[in-house]
């Protein structure tokens, strides 16, 4: 009788740690840390004698217990409630427009808006319009960073509706920008998926960005039972541009690929790369990077960055360990003390590239 193989702890633990490394630190968390450190430096130091430690904890516990019996509006210094959102941490220049019951319009300034029923918090960057839908929020226009409370058992996923679909949040923190004709989401941590009007699904991992409307590339996932839903009114500026059935027919024929010339500026290359990544077109991204890296007149820092981008795509998206290891070997040879030495070494370890030394 064969005894089942025991899983190897050290390998599994390293894999877990690599996942944490890949998460990075979300921008909103970094900002909070800076604010806390800055705030700390402004406060006078308070010292509690050790002997009072236990009494202090007990007093704190009693205080916290008393707070739990108050409704949110009664809490001292509690945020104000507007259109179902609790408004907190407002900048001095915050200006909220007169709203209907379910619409929050921020005309100027910044704040944190918390919708406790949906378990969604947002922080705006500039003017935004957000409506409360029955099963989530709708970002009508503007840019905001969203955080989502952990779902309770049987609670449906948090949903943010946008112009061409919805984002279902499976955990965590992301930034959405909604323009007049489309938008983009960038995932900072956790997992989300984007489902467009046709039921096509894209699942994002931390660091991924996605733009809508989606391209006509073949999709891996399609929603099995797309919800029937009356689409939100399309803003007037975009109405004339909605595709007719004839347009859609034409759009299904892929456009001839237009190669970004290798002589394009680094900024252009990176923009194109971001576009290809957001569409999941990783093979094209690899081709673009390889073409660009053949150019002789690249600045050293740019060459290193693009080489690193190529390696991460080969490692994480294309998942070709042979090609990735070969590339990382070349990268280390060209950039022995480079900016990404730690990340490259981690990738080589994860791929078990033979004979590799950072």
């Amino acid at each position: 009788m064969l005894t089942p193989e025991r899983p190897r702890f050290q390998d599994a633990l390293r894999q877990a740690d690599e996942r944490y490394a890949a998460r990075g630190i979300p921008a909103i968390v970094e900002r909070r840390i800076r604010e806390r450190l800055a705030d700390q430096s402004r406060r006078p130091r308070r010292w509690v004698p050790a002997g009072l430690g236990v009494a202090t904890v007990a007093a704190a516990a009693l205080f916290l217990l008393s707070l739990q019996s108050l409704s949110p509006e009664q809490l001292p210094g509690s945020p104000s409630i507007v259109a179902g959102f609790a408004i907190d941490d407002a900048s001095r220049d915050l200006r909220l427009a007169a709203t209907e019951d379910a619409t929050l319009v921020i005309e100027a300034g910044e704040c944190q808006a918390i919708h406790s029923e949906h378990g969604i918090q947002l922080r705006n960057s500039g003017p935004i319009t957000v409506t409360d839908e029955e099963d989530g929020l709708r970002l009508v226009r503007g840019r905001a960073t969203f955080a989502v409370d952990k779902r309770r058992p049987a609670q449906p996923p948090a949903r943010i509706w946008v112009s061409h679909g919805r984002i279902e949040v499976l955990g965590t923190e992301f930034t959405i920008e909604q323009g007049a004709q489309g938008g983009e989401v960038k995932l900072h941590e956790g997992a989300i998926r984007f489902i467009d009007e046709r039921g096509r699904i894209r699942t994002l991992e931390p660091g991924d960005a996605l733009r809508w409307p989606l391209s006509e590339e073949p999709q891996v996932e399609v929603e099995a039972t797309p919800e029937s839903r009356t689409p939100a009114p399309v803003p007037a500026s975009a109405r004339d541009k909605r595709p007719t059935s004839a347009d859609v027919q034409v759009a299904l024929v892929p456009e001839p690929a237009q190669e970004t010339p290798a002589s394009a500026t680094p900024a252009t290359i990176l923009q194109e790369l971001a576009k290809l990544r957001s569409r999941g077109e990783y093979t094209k991204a690899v081709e673009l990077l390889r073409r660009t890296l053949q150019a002789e007149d690249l600045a050293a820092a740019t060459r290193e960055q693009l080489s690193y981008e190529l390696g991460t795509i080969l490692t994480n998206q294309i998942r070709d360990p042979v090609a990735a290891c070969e590339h990382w070997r070349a990268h280390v040879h060209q950039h022995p003390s480079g900016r990404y030495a730690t990340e490259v070494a981690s990738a080589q370890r994860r791929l078990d590239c033979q004979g590799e030394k950072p």
Partner: protein
Amino acid sequence: MPTATHMLELEEAAPSEVSLESCYAAHHATIFRLGLRYGGGSSAWAEDLVHDVFLKLAETAHELHRHEDLGGWLYRVASNLAISRLRRERSFVGRVVHLLTGDQSDVEPATDVVFERHELASRAMQALRELPPKEQVVLSMKILDDKSQKDIAEALSMSEGYVSKLVTRALARIESQGWEVTSC
């Protein structure tokens, strides 16, 4: 997490002071990753650790010598603060405060979300999290950061013999849960 420690170049403009901003820029992501590791994937836990580490740096910067290995110093401080925090959380008082504040940042579901498709990784991190605080941190330093027992002992102000015992105990616990462990 780098296996080698880093030297920071100090700004010539303030030769007697540590450049806090450059320290923060260079190392906060590394400390945050440590926080995720010890906090079971909790962003809030990691955020608190980063805050506490750099607060400590701000408070003691004047005592640090020029060309001090600041990366190593921050790593040591983070490791010690992590142990202290884990011990507080697991104390009776820590559990009472957790109960009363209804803190939702703890930790298994966060780990499940991050490692949704990597079940073994999730289980390994959970097994690490269940170790007593000192064993958790020591084993992490050994396996994940490739630190020698001597380095660990120095960082955590322990004897090498004690570090060796902690590693042995931790691996025995892990093995008893059905894992294959290689001695380290």
